[in-house]
């Protein structure tokens, strides 16, 4: 055990936590509004990575243009997924909506695997690095944090400052009552699905600027999102962001004191424990 790694690991974990949090916000937003656990979440994260790849390696543009594009594509893709696969069964039992989104997941994985292969990919972004003592912080990580915070901020401004955003919150609070107020709840559900997917793809796009990836890379981040979402309270976007930071920090710090491969064991144990002891999450409100 060498505690020299503590500070750099904690910083790394915390920075990464912002991106985890952003991805989890997408999952939790969709759940909060539509009550659907989106099993295509991980695959949408992976698709975000490929948007950056297409923009950076394919079109030769700045990878961060890809991050922006991923958000736009995600919004559209989420709306389409909702309309095609979810709307018809929105009031059905959980099993139905879970499998509907799982079917979407299969379709995207299958198509992406065939068209893009599972070859490893990487987008080479060099944003320099800040170095001080034993701590190295890569520029790409800092930029990712800035973008993640900006995206979360934009989401909050939208949900709390605009009529459309408030309508989404109204649907989340009580779908039937929102309908009675003249809010077209289907439109809001579709929009929420779009926004959640946009967040997932944005997070994926940011991850592509940090690590290598392939078509199947979404899985790890999906389970991580589940953990974070439960930690922060299912359906609570602020909780997701904070949960992301907690998980990021936890990963960074525990990795110093125990073998790195034991970290997931701790993570999932915490996950199950939180569900048992405080199912509404650390920040979840009691309703």
């Amino acid at each position, binding site marked *: 055990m*060498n*505690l*020299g*790694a503590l500070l*750099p*690991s904690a910083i*790394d*974990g915390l920075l*990464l936590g912002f991106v985890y949090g952003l991805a989890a916000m997408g999952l939790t937003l969709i759940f909060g509004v539509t009550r659907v656990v989106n099993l295509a979440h991980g695959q949408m994260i992976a698709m975000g990575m490929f948007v950056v790849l297409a923009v950076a390696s394919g079109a030769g543009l700045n990878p961060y243009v890809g991050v922006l594009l991923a958000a736009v594509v995600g919004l559209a893709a989420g709306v389409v997924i909702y309309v095609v696969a979810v709307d018809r069964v929105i009031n059905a039992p959980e099993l139905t909506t879970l499998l509907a989104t799982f079917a979407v997941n299969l379709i995207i994985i299958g198509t992406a*695997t065939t068209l893009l*292969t*599972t*070859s*490893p990919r*990487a987008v*080479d972004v060099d944003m320099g*690095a800040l*170095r001080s003592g*034993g701590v*190295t912080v*890569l520029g790409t990580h800092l930029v990712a944090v800035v973008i993640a915070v900006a995206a979360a901020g934009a989401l909050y401004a939208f949900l709390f400052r605009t009529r459309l955003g408030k309508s989404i919150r109204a649907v989340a609070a009580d779908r039937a009552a929102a309908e009675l107020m003249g809010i077209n709840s289907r439109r809001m559900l579709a929009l929420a699905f779009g926004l959640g997917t946009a967040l997932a793809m944005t997070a994926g796009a940011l991850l592509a600027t*940090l*690590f*290598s*990836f*392939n078509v*199947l*890379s979404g899985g*790890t981040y999906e389970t991580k999102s589940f953990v974070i979402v439960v930690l922060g309270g299912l359906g609570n976007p602020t909780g997701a962001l904070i949960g992301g930071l907690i998980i990021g920090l936890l*990963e*960074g710090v525990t*990795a*110093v004191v125990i*073998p*790195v*491969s034991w*970290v*997931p064991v701790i993570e999932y144990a915490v996950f199950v424990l939180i569900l048992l002891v405080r199912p509404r999450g650390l920040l979840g409100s009691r309703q």
Partner: protein
Amino acid sequence: MRGMRIMAAAAAAVLVVAACGSGTSSGPKTLKIGFTASQTGAQELTSKRQVEGIKLWADQVTKAGGIKLKDGTVLTPQLVSYDDESKTDRVQALYTKLINDDKVDFLLSPYSSGLIKAAAVVGEQNGKIMVTAGGADDATMEQGFTSIYQVYTPASQYLTGAIDLMLAMDPSIKKIAIVNEKDAFSTGVAAAAKPYAASKGLQIVVDEGYDTGTTDFGPIVNKIAAAAPDAILGGGHFQDGQTFAKAIFDKQVKAKFIALLVAPPEPTFGDIGAAANDIVGPSQWEASVAYDAKAAVAANISWYGPAVADFTAAYNAAFGSAPSYHSAGGYAAGLVLQKAIEDAGSIDPAAVRAALDKQDLLTLFGRIRFSTDAKTHGKQTAHQMVYVQWQAAADGSLSTKVVWPEAGRTAPIVPRQ
């Protein structure tokens, strides 16, 4: 159930290379060779290389008029393969299908030790001979199999050789980090390297494993940086190895010597630019180590198959890229089988098994001989590893140089900057 049979029949020829032979009087017979390939999943890239090697072998044999036996029979190879998705689950069902439905005569292996382990059980159950390439795991070859033959140098030798190389370069090295992927192959490599390092008086200051599919090496690299070792040994397969190298470079970890498994010998490892510089990798084969007939004479064994240069040129022409050691391994598996069939003069399993047991060849892949000891039957005993290092030329361009063994080296090893 009828549907299932029809389905199986329709599936019989997923990948058919070389259909017709040269038409002698007795008529050519087809030699059916079955294997699974990872067309998707974690092993996709390296598996593709291996399959290309196998295809090239089958193509060349067909073009040369097939395998001619002493009794005048001519055999044209026909390859039958399915996608194993890089998962062990279905490997067994697919190999059973190859043996019973497709009625293949011989088996080749999938790529990677985990898949080979599962496939070998089925091959052995059915008494089919399987020549494995793409799998170096020692444990698999210590299960008491009788019909499995390993072309690769066993995993236990991958990093022990690297340790020798490292100490030859700089005897002052004391502290090392061992970081490996937690799969059958890499765990086996690390398990052999640790006691060997200790026996050389080295101190292991970081000993970590990471899951297959890991992309974030931040926590591990931070630990390494804090422990400040002189050398880093480990890795696993291509993608993680490349990512690990990049993370080490980004965090400016100082180490005089870094050796990683599998990834460095692949030409695309150089895509990470300066991060690849000075990294060493054990390789089963390098084009620049030109084994030839003369060396065979010197070692008093027979030479078999094309020369290294001819293979490389033909591979380049067929697939538009230079062969990696995985490609050569696939090709060598075909060669080994071909030679054994020729020596046996038939495709009778017992005769071919006897021929393989006796085999001691020098090929473009290097020397090949199998253990005949009951406990380790079929394990590779003669093939030698080579070590490559990415080195920068004066103009900054990177390329791999063979740095070990002395005989085949194209450049001396340099300490990492």
